[in-house]
């Protein structure tokens, strides 16, 4: 579960656990040692996590224990009514969606679904959606527009599924149509990149009035591995590619592609759901509140301007 660069810290953590256990059961107390170790851990932890490299960030973004859409639903929403199907072909599990309530705010929540177990991952195709997933998302967004509630889109995908059937049923068309329809959807759209923002598969539900990113999430036109194998003919150059692709939240904020970074707890969101999720929730609610005051027409005008100015001319 731990990543390479975390090893020193993990070793200390293990030692600490031992000490704490000893402290409980024996007469001899290790209070000073524990205090010492705690201090050391904090320092190392700070060093380890304060400045992750882009490639390390990619690893955190993909961490097997990172909060997934079902965790956000459990952690942020007091209600989730899942809605199914694209009314045309199927009910994809790579993208799920439904009515959701966050505090008093009702939204249409859509997002990629990854799993933590093998079973879950097979069911959700590792977060790689098929065309019917994008079409289901569009249907739900249109329903949100009709019901005058905002759309909240959670992004976490390695990319749209590259399969024979997905191509046959129009992966390209499904993504393209969403891009077009989201541009003129007359209801607020808040997008949060929670983990991996993988290329067309991500932006396919990622056009919004506000685009937020968790501090250890990534968003890229291609995976670092893919980029490295193409440009350097060497997949092991992924760390170099990760660097070059400027896929971290900080870089994306600088590039004007995202609007705000949601800070994760030290070590990454997976280390403390109870710290990570409230921050995400608070940020979403703040933006929803602001957007709720803007008319549908005005929203689409602003959204157009937002995307029109990406790329500097």
């Amino acid at each position, binding site marked *: 579960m731990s990543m390479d660069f975390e090893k020193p810290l993990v070793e200390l953590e293990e030692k600490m656990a031992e000490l704490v256990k000893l402290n409980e059961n024996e007469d001899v107390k290790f209070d000073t040692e524990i205090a010492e170790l705690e201090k050391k851990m904090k320092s190392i932890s700070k060093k380890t996590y304060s400045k992750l490299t882009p490639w390390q960030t990619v690893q955190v973004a993909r961490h097997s224990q990172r909060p997934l859409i079902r965790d956000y639903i459990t952690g942020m929403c007091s209600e989730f009514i899942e809605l199914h199907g694209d009314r045309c072909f199927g009910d994809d599990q790579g993208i799920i969606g439904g009515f959701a309530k966050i505090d008093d705010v009702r939204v249409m929540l859509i997002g990629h679904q990854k799993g933590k177990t093998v079973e879950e991952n097979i069911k959700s195709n590792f977060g790689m959606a098929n065309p019917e997933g994008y079409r289901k998302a569009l249907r739900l967004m249109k329903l949100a527009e009709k019901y005058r509630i905002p759309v909240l889109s959670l992004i976490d995908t390695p990319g749209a599924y590259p399969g024979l059937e997905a191509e046959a049923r129009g992966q*390209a068309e499904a993504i393209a149509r969403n891009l077009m329809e989201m541009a003129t959807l007359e209801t607020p759209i808040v997008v949060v990149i929670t983990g991996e923002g993988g290329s*067309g598969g991500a932006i396919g539900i990622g056009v919004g009035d506000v685009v937020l990113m968790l501090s250890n999430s990534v968003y890229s*036109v291609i995976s670092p591995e893919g980029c490295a194998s193409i440009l350097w003919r060497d997949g092991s150059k992924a760390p170099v590619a990760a660097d070059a692709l400027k896929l971290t939240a900080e870089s994306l904020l600088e590039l004007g*592609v995202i609007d705000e970074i949601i800070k994760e707890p030290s070590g990454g969101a997976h280390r403390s759901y109870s710290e990570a999720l409230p921050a995400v929730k608070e940020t979403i609610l703040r933006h929803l509140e602001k957007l709720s005051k803007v008319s549908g027409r005005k929203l689409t005008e602003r959204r157009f301007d937002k995307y029109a100015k*990406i790329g500097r*001319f």
Partner: protein
Amino acid sequence: MGWFNRSRSKPAAQGKTKSEDMWVVCPSCEAHVFKEEWHKGLKVCPKCNFHDRLTCHERVKLILDTGTWHELGGSVSTTDPLEFVDGKGRYADKAEAAKEKTGLNESVLTGRGKISGRRIVMAVMDFRFLGGSLGSGTGEKILRAATYALKHKLPYIVVSASGGARMHEGIVSLMQMAKTCAGIARLHKARIPYISILTHPTTGGVSASYAMVGDINISEPGALIGFAGRRVIEETIKQKLPDDFQTAEYLLDHGFIDSIVNRSEMKDYLMNVLRYWRAR
């Protein structure tokens, strides 16, 4: 989504015509055709009807009335938002080289002109320019042309030829998908025709954005059109793909292309179709 990994996907996809002094070898069926015949035939193979790539200027000449083309957005050029450097050097240098080689400022040429006397706005991609990849300059030009069409209430035609997103511009390239589609969305709401011509090859982020949402999607015989690369798919699903997979004909069968039109008939086809729009 990148364009690089596509150029090796299958023979037809290479599109480069190995030319010697006298003749051209068809990239699809490898027939030897006299160079003069090849060009007189609009780069269409007389043996297998494969429609080889055209430059943007050739395409303009093919479609528009002579002398009616006026370039728009000529001031927009490539940018290097990531200051990208790969194994072989700086992207900025690469872009400069592409400019010199092609005489273009980006992978798309935009302008206005006339088809049989009818005013239209057109954007034509050129595969020679970094594989027709979707850079921020490309997106900017395509959007500006769309906005021009909107303002003047003129039909908009985009001829795509692209391997997809331009990796060297990273996320900024990806955003061009949303940016261009936002322009198309406005045309749609304003009931202004948008016709997409998907030529060989149109894949990745271009097929998954403006190229696929035409009122009418047109292609040329044998053109490669798809989202993911053939190799990526084969590696993912662990099986060989059918030969006609991701061809224009395959997409016609699967409901995504309205019509496959021979190059020699493209202008007439467009003229005929545009007459069905009642401007107001």
